């Protein structure tokens, strides 16, 4: 089809988790015929095994679909898939910036949820045309009219004629596509201006190198052009441009303003491509980059070590491979007395951290020991210098510290009214500062708190879930650093400090945390030949103590008739078990114990 901006529709789908975004995307691919039914697997856009299993979308993707509308004209629809989780907010915002419209999927029985609102606000910020779609109308509990009213009242979007859909059963899909064609504005980008291509995603392809997924906001780009990354300030020669099929590439001679596609330029390192950056032509550069670029900064750090020290190289290779497709992952080598050689890794948030850990274990078959996550603390030293600390072990001695600051987030909790008390109590417990409370509809409340990030990464999610029986939803954004009375809490096993178990906590929290970690360690460390005292200490002062009693019975009563094979097997098993433990001084500590610091009652 000939390039014609008026026939292009760039859109995304936004929804609360589980409201059916991926299923709707699947149906759209099917309906437009880019995916044959026999090729369809559930959640086609979610190709990572982990994504399918968790039902979440981790990386952004885009697909170009030809569609002949009821008006008899042929259109080009570009569906840009976006991640749904708060950890990936920045990636979502870049994906939205590449669109003119957004399909807002709302579950016909659940109605509006926290993420629905968060996503809508983000879409409005990008001036997107929002097309409400009521999904899951096949469910007996569906109340499409009520939900429509909710959307109109709460968001102020006209729901007259909003498609009623069952993505699962393929009902109403055509209405959605017609809406996209009729209501999403066509791009009005200047094809003759200097190139401005917004990078909304990047990933690594074994044959093409690091690839940028782009939306051209101005100009054109073709093979052989020399391009420049405006923020990254690097130049490359374009080797291929094209658009996306659901499961592959469709190379083109050229990409033009208003279009969505990819640019390959033999880029070896994914780190050279920054999501949010603008690509322009070296020969005829744009005067300004597109707005909104910000470097991705890890918010949560943890130490990742191979359970078997011999796997260090494999772990490094695995991290390197994951990093190829995930610019937000950072890692650098570190050494721990207790855990040996490993890496300090930075993540966007807890989910991101979990996903990386799981991918390392699953895709690379690695056995890992992970330390408790930490945030980055700011230490102002008495000599006036400032140090950023992402590993408690690196905290300077107390006498060198003038004061410390910790990162703080702007947190929003949306909850049914009944749980307001429980949530306020939780936020109070987590050293939160109350900011605001709004009734957003009938019986729902939006609570706004400032919370220290180190409390959020601790067990905030679990607590929130259990205290509200899963009804509340939570979103946060980094706000900045605030001064705080922080101390380093050390754990001593048989009198010896275990570096991998140290954490930084607020002084008021130190005592209960120390006690609870000591209790958890007592459960996690198996009895050994000797009694093991476990102590929690701040700067040499013991604040809590537990004891793992000495082993009392561990012997095979009988080796029958000269058959010593059982005894040998048992010995091998015990040896194996011991090998899987870390030696901290004279104490053997199982890998799980290092996560004990995290787990709370």
């Amino acid at each position, binding site marked *: 089809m000939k390039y014609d901006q008026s026939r292009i529709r760039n859109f995304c789908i936004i929804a609360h988790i589980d409201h059916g975004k991926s299923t709707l995307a699947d149906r759209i691919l099917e309906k437009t015929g880019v995916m044959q039914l026999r090729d369809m697997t559930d959640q086609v856009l979610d190709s990572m095994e982990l994504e399918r299993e968790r039902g979440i979308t981790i990386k952004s993707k885009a697909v170009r679909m030809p569609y002949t509308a009821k008006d008899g004209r042929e259109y080009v629809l570009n569906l840009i898939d976006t991640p749904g989780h708060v950890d990936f907010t920045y990636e979502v915002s870049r994906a939205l910036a590449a669109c003119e419209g957004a399909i807002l999927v709302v579950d016909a029985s659940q109605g509006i949820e926290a993420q629905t609102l968060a996503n809508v606000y983000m879409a409005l910020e990008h001036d997107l045309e929002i097309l409400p779609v009521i999904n899951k109308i096949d469910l007996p509990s569906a109340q499409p009219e009520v939900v429509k009213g909710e959307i109109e009242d709460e968001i102020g979007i006209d729901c007259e004629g909003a498609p009623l859909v069952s993505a699962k059963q393929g009902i109403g899909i055509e209405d959605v596509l017609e809406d996209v064609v009729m209501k999403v504005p066509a791009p009005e980008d200047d094809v003759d201006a200097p190139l401005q291509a917004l990078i909304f995603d990047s990933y690594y392809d074994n044959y093409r190198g690091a690839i940028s997924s782009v939306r051209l906001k101005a100009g054109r780009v073709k093979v052989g052009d020399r391009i420049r990354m405006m923020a990254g300030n690097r130049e490359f020669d374009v080797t291929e441009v094209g658009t996306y099929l659901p499961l592959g590439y469709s190379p083109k001679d050229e990409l033009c303003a208003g279009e969505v596609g990819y640019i390959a330029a033999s880029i070896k390192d994914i780190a050279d491509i920054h999501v949010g950056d603008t690509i322009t032509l070296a020969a005829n550069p744009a005067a300004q980059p597109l707005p909104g670029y910000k470097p991705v900064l890890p918010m949560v750090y943890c130490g990742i070590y191979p359970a078997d020290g011999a796997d260090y190289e494999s772990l490094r290779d695995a991290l390197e491979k994951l990093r190829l497709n995930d610019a937000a992952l950072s890692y650098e080598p570190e050494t721990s007395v207790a855990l040996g050689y490993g890496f300090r890794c930075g993540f966007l948030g807890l989910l991101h951290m979990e996903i990386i850990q799981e991918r390392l274990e699953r895709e690379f078959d690695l056995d890992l020991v992970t330390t408790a996550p930490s945030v980055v603390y700011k230490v102002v030293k008495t000599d006036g210098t400032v140090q950023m600390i992402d590993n408690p072990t690196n905290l300077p001695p107390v006498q060198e510290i003038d004061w410390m600051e910790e990162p703080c987030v702007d947190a929003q909790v949306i909850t049914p009214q009944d749980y307001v008390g429980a949530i306020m109590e939780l936020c109070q417990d987590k050293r939160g500062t109350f900011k605001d409370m709004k009734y957003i509809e009938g019986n729902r409340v939006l609570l706004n708190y400032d919370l220290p990030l180190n409390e959020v990464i601790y067990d905030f999610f679990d607590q929130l879930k259990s205290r509200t029986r899963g009804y509340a939803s939570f979103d946060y954004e980094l706000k900045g650093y605030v001064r705080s009375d922080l101390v380093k809490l050390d754990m001593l096993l048989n009198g010896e400090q275990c570096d991998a178990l140290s954490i930084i906590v607020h002084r008021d929290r130190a005592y209960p945390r120390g006690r609870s970690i000591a209790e958890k360690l007592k459960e996690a460390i198996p009895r050994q030949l000797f009694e093991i005292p476990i102590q929690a200490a701040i700067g040499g002062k013991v604040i809590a103590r537990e004891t793992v009693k000495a082993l009392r019975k561990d012997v095979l*009563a009988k080796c029958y008739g*000269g058959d010593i*094979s059982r005894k040998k097997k048992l010995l091998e098993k015990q*040896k194996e078990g011991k090998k899987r433990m870390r030696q901290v001084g004279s104490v053997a500590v199982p890998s799980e114990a290092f996560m004990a610091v995290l787990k709370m009652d």
Partner: protein
Amino acid sequence: MCKPLSLYFHVPFCVRKCAYCDFASWPGREGDWRRYFEALENELKDWSEITDFGRLSDHYCVQTAFIGGGTPTLAPAEVLCTITDQSRVLFPFAEDAEITIEGNPGTLTPEKLAIYRSAGINRLSLGAQSFDDGLLESLGRIHDARQIGEAVRMARDAGFENINLDLMYALPGQTMDQWIDTLNAATALGVEHISAYSLIVEEGTPMAARVAKGEAVLPDEDAVNAMQRAAIDLLARAGYGRYEISNYAKPGFECRHNLVYWRRGDYLGLGCAAHSMLQNCRFHNPENLDDYLAGGRRPDRQRLDARDILEETVMLGTRTTQGIDFGLFSGTDPARLKRLIQADLIAIENGFLRLTRGGLEVQDAVVLELLEVLGC
């Protein structure tokens, strides 16, 4: 030129399986008895000709033999004794060889005992297990407490001067009082040797199923240790010295055959599921009776290397109260041994390293530690 050799004969027949038993033993196979003893005899003959370890009869002399089961005393005595007779024909025997037969108190008669004696069997090991009829029944034993005493008296009359009773503790529902009563009843019979085994619940046994269902409740480890300590003390007062984790004897009556296992002497196991160790090579016959009867023999031989030997020496030798040669530890880190000594888990005396009473209670863990000290 006579190296000591021990023979083990496995007789895999019993009246019925006990609730805790996962040994190679089958009830209701009377029809196979004759075939089985023929097979044993043939295996013996084979061994008198096999030259893999040199011709055994040329440089070995049998010091101990043990006929275990199952319930060897269930088989017709004259049939059973063909194997001891045949052994003497094929191998040189020491004059004072210790020859043990294992038996169930419910299966003995004066006639059988007389035949055993005349065949040169001079030690009787009785599976008594308990003197509490309720516990005996719950274990699925085929005899009662009274029959144990009778069996001992019959054996004495037949001329047995070396008798062992196997006892079990840590049984579901067993009280300390019941255990002490059993120990007293055993010593009152004046036997020379007592084995006191803590119950091992083996997977797949009826006992394991009962425990899993909660029908049988096992005593906790403190209670088990208390029972063991009670046994050590009570038996010591009655004149039985503890020489291995589960074995006690009057002076001079330590079971020489079992010591061969702990001290890694050469032994040849014959019959189904029988294990052997000859010249640092381990092998065993098929576990299954039918496989054995079909002629299956020693599927694989595992040659032990220096590290295996050291490991076994520590693992097995520390089960005895004599312990192991302290010379093994020359050049190792004394600090780690010192820690074990200070915790009263090991003692070093007269060139031997042995486990203390407390050390024997956690022998597996101490062995692991000692092996680490030795660097294996």
